[in-house]
Structure formats: C-alpha cells, structure tokens
C-alpha cells in the first residue's frame, strides 16, 4: 500500500483491495455463519489475504471450507495447509469420497468428479448451517460469471436464478435470507487475472509451486496438456512426454490443463499473462468445454 498520495488518488489495485475488504466486513457483520471457500488456488489465496487484512490484528472471524475431490495437486494442498496454519483459521474439509460413502451424493460412474463437487458443497453448507459462503469467482473469468452479483442469492436448493437477481446498488449489499437459503459472496468480483498476479507480486505471498514453470510429465487430451498421474489412466494413443509447463488455474488434476511456459518468477508470469491471447479457463479447463452454457448450468445448480 502506498499510503499517501499528494493528490489523494488511489491506484486501481488499491481501489480493488478497498472494495474487497469492505465486502468482507459487511458480510462478516451481517451473516450469522459465514465460511470462506478455499481451494488453495491463486484466487482463493488472494481472497484469504484480503480477509486477513480486513480483520487484522484480529483473526479471521470465520472458518475456511475445502471441497476435497481427491484429485487435487499435492502442492496445492501443502500451500493450503501452510496458509491455514499461519492464520490460525479452522479448516472444514468436505470430501466427495466421504459424501459418496455416506450416500449423500451418488456416484453413477457417469458424472464427473467435478460435477459431484456441487452436491458435496451444498451438503457441507447445509450440514454446517453456513449462511454465507465467500467464493473467489471473478467476473472476467467467464461470461456467466460476468453477470453475477457480489451478493448472489441461493434458494433452499442452493440454486442461482440468473434471470431474477436482486438489484445491487452502490456498495449497499442486501443480505436478507429465508430459512434454508444462503448467500454466495464474491469479494474479488472485479479483479482480473492480471490484477491477481500484480497483487500476488506486490504482497509477496505464497502460492502453490505449480503456477511457476517446472518440468512435468504430461500428455495431450482434447487439445489440453494434462499431467501424468495414476488417477488419470492414459487412453489409447496418448503419449507422455516431459515438458516445461505451468498452470494458470488449479482445479481437478485430471481436467485442468497446463500451458508450456518458462515463466518462473512473478514478473515473468505477469508478462506472460499480459500477452496471453487465450482466457485462463479457455486454455486450461476441461469442465468449461462441453457447451456454451456449461458454466451457467453448473452455477444454476449451485457450483462455486
């Protein structure tokens, strides 16, 4: 933070930070039981950092929730644990395997793990009685996200109704809920991928190593480079080669693609992101490729 400006102007990154902190404080004050959805990826790390700033020197006044799909990168889980430990927040883990075992979600063998995250998440919200869940969604990520409010209302079934969103004026957020409903709150709605990297660089905060260029054994599928892992058996004709890559997003290991890159420092990543011609999800997310409205449909059901 550049504290004083002779002309009292705040840089755009400082304005975004101030807006996010405002949202955190509003939601923490108004909702009985908020939780922060924390994947350990770069967006949720920035979100956690902003929460840390919003309440400092007090601890973050809510727990963090992770949906464990069993397919996360080990490096991401390690970083996540270090953040949780340093901040002294409570970590709630809702695992898909556990939800299947308990019969809460049904694994019919056809539905992807990615899709099973939604009922697992909704169940965790319901079981714990969370009334608000902070998410690290950004409006620049995808065209359905671009439409979503900062306070995004979910009905008793966890559904989003994109055609009937509440008006949201100024910075006056309406947190009214009925029994069984909850709110998704998106404090970094207005950040772009580049803002996230600028901020990570400025704050000097830890992110998982998979975001930096590294050597990895990968294979090609559906035009994406996927990592070699026993969790994702090779199909016929797929060949593993070692390449220098990095990840632009961190999701499910079996669906998230990496990009060939030699960017091994934050400034190099910023340079690469600024010059990128493909969106981060377009380049790397198998889950968005099925149809034009894949994200909208998943979000309606209650996805992150």
């Amino acid at each position: 933070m550049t504290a004083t400006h002779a002309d009292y102007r705040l840089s755009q990154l400082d304005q975004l930070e101030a807006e996010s902190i405002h949202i955190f404080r509003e939601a923490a004050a108004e909702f009985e039981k908020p939780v922060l959805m924390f994947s350990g990826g770069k967006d949720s790390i920035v979100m956690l950092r902003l929460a840390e700033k919003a309440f400092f020197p007090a601890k973050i006044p809510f727990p963090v929730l992770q949906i464990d799909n069993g397919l996360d990168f080990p490096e991401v889980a390690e970083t996540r644990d270090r953040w949780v430990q340093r901040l002294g927040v409570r970590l709630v883990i809702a695992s898909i395997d556990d939800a299947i075992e308990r019969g809460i979600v049904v694994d019919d063998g056809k539905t992807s793990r990615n899709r099973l995250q939604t009922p697992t998440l909704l169940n965790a919200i319901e079981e714990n009685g969370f009334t608000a869940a902070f998410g690290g969604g950004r409006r620049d990520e995808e065209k359905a996200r671009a439409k979503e409010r900062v306070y995004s209302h979910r009905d008793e079934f966890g559904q989003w109704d994109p055609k009937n969103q509440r008006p949201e004026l100024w910075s006056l957020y309406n947190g009214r809920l009925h029994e069984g409903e909850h709110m998704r709150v998106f404090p970094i709605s207005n950040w772009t991928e580049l803002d996230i990297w600028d901020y990570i660089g400025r704050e000097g905060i830890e992110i998982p190593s998979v975001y930096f260029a590294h050597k990895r054994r990968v294979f090609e599928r559906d035009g994406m480079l996927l990592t070699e892992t026993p969790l994702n058996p090779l199909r016929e004709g797929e060949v593993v080669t070692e390449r220098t890559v990095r990840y632009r997003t961190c999701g499910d290991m079996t669906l998230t693609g990496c990009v060939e890159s030699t960017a091994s420092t934050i400034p190099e990543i910023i340079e690469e992101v600024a010059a990128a011609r493909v969106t981060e999800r377009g380049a790397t997310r198998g889950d968005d490729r099925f149809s034009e409205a894949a994200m909208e449909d998943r979000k309606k059901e209650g996805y992150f």
Partner: protein
Amino acid sequence: MAMDLLRFATAGSVDDGKSTLIGRLLFDSKSIFTDQLESVEKTSQDKGHGYVDLSLLTDGLRSEREQGITIDVAYRYFATPNRKFIIADTPGHVQYTRNMVTGASTADLGLVLVDARHGLTEQSRRHAVLLSLLRVPHLVLCINKMDLVDYSEEVYKKISAEFTAFATKLNIPDLEVIPISALQGDNVVQRSENMTWYSGPTLIHHLEHVHVASDRDLVDVRLPVQYVIRPKSDDHHDYRGYAGQVAGGVLKPGDEVMVLPSGMTSKIAGIDLFDKEIPEAFPPMSVTVRLEDDVDVSRGDMISRVKNAPEPSQDIDAMICWMTTAPLRPRQKLAIKHTSNSARALVKDIQYRLDVNSLHRDLETKELGLNEIGRVQLRTTKPLLCDPYSKNRTTGSFILIDEATGVTVGAGMIND
C-alpha cells in the same frame, strides 16, 4: 506508474447497440481473447448472421443469446496503458430497468446510446433521467448506427440538439456527443473516415482522458463504521479499532472527531491499514481507526468531524426508483439499508411521480409503479446519518427491502 480506474455503464433503449458497442470497444482495443472470439464467431454462424455479432461477447446468459437482448448487467474489464476500465453493459428493455440502475449506480461515466434512425425515445430519456438522478458525473451521448443514415451530419446535429435541450433540464455536469457506428467501428477506437465533418474525440480517447479524480469529496469526513475489531489476544489485548471504508474527507491521527449518533467526541489515536499505521486516510480506502478515548462505538455509527457532521434524522425526503411490480404506496412498511445501518421505514407520503418524458411532476398519482421514479417522504424507526445525495453518493443513498420476500425493491437518493 499507478494505474487509475474508470467505471462506466451503458444506457439507452433496447437494440440501440449497447452490447455491440462494448464488443467493438473490446475488440478494437485488442482485449478479446482468441477463444472468446471463436465462440462468438461460432454462435453468430449458428444463428445465421452474416457478420460476427459482437454483442454476444457480453450477452452471456443462455436466454439472452436466445432472445437477442440483454437481461442483466454484464461486467467487462479492459485496460489501456494508463487506465483500467470496469464496464457495466446494462439492458435497455424497460422490464429490466432495475438492472440498468444496478450497473449505473457505481459508474463514473454513463454512455447513452441512441439509434440515429429513431432519435430519442422514452427509454433513452428515462435512462438519461436515471443517470442524472444517480449523479453519474460524466455523460457521453453516442449517436449510433450512423452507417444507416449515410453518416449524415444533419442527423447528428438534430439529435444532439434535441438531447442537449433535454439535458439542460437535468443535472448533467459534463456532456460529450459522439457520432459512431458500433457495428462498423466508426469513432469507437478508430477515427471515422466516413464522418470527416466530426472533429471531436473518438470514444476511447474520451474514456481515457476524462478527468474523474476530482469527483470525490475530500472535505466532509465520513467514516461509516462497519465492524469493530477487538482481537482479545495476548499481543493485542487492548486493541479496539473501528473498521470502515472512508466515504468522504481526509482523516489524520490527532484529528478531533465526533461519533454519531451519540455525539461523543474524541481524537484519532491512529489509522491502521493491515499491519501498518498510515498518516492519512481518504476515499475510498478501507481502514481501521483507533480513538484516544474509550467511547462506545458500534456498527452503524459514523465517525465525522465535530463541526461538520451529518444530520441524524428519522424523516427522510428522497427520490426513489421503484423496482418491483407491486406498487409503492403510502403507509407501506419496508426495511431500509443506509451505509452500514439498517432500520425499518414507513412511507409517509408520495409527493409526486416524475414523468420521464416531460419531466413533469405528477402530484395526483399517490403511488409508484414498476420502474417509476418519484419523490417520497419516509419515517424511520431510528435516526439515520444522512447527507444529501448531491453531496455524497455513499451517505446520501439507501436501498429499500421488502420484508417478506427479502428482495431489494427500491433505490433512494436523499434530497438536499
């Protein structure tokens, strides 16, 4: 070099080309990614268009693509070397006026589009009125589809004169009129070769250079308290900080301040931004203020200066934009949210309804229907710490919430 930020919103009737313009702006400023463009090209083909429909870049919902109209605001982002832009592309359809208001409420600049063939419509007037009520300080009238009127200077002059005449009756401090073709790109990013008679700026040039920093109030200190920070840990045993986003003025350690509504005074002991003490705080910083005395301060209170404080009042006189089908009527009770404060409000009177075409004040109709605007008197259950909206967009605004459904049904701007 620190980049600054401009938030702008589109406005105007349905089909006047708002989404196409935003698509064009993003496309010509090279802010579109190849996968986004491919998807738009494919959908355009599937729909049988003979051209790439750039409005599909912002019309992101399934029903919007099916109906070919915008239903809800889309937020898009792009940057030029000195400025980042947050765009709210809003719907023109009357039914979705509430979503236009959502997008415009935070804008520094409004882009009103008019179809050159049709000139001003009731909806373009309604949107201009809303932008002026919302005190969006800068306005650009884009006369669009100039390609369909042979790039005629006469058409430009006529609509420009018509709008300027209408605008003089509104509060619009800064107006620019630009003839464009969103479809062909004339005067959006590239200067038009078809309108050599036009010597003003291109749209992008204007957006890059319009001066917005001075729109902030740096005089009247207003800090609505959102959250009281009390760590109760060994390291910070006695820490007690009042957290909020500065809504006006400049705060410095040592300043004498008054806490409202109690009226108690104290001095600022320190201002914290995360783990650093800072020498001053100004809008729109989110900070934590510590006071020298142990006064009672809680969420909903306001920190201001002793001789310059907002008036605590239970009687509110405001312009209200009504956003639901069931009309607003006298005696109705609603929940009200103003800064970090919540209360209940009773509608005492609906003084008049504003006719958005003629700007005539209709004193007869004692109710406000969907998308109507009027002057309303409210009585609240407790004092709110109000400023006129003309002085402060944060402390002068509120929302009304239906207590049964929980839906936001009204937007209010407090009168002088």
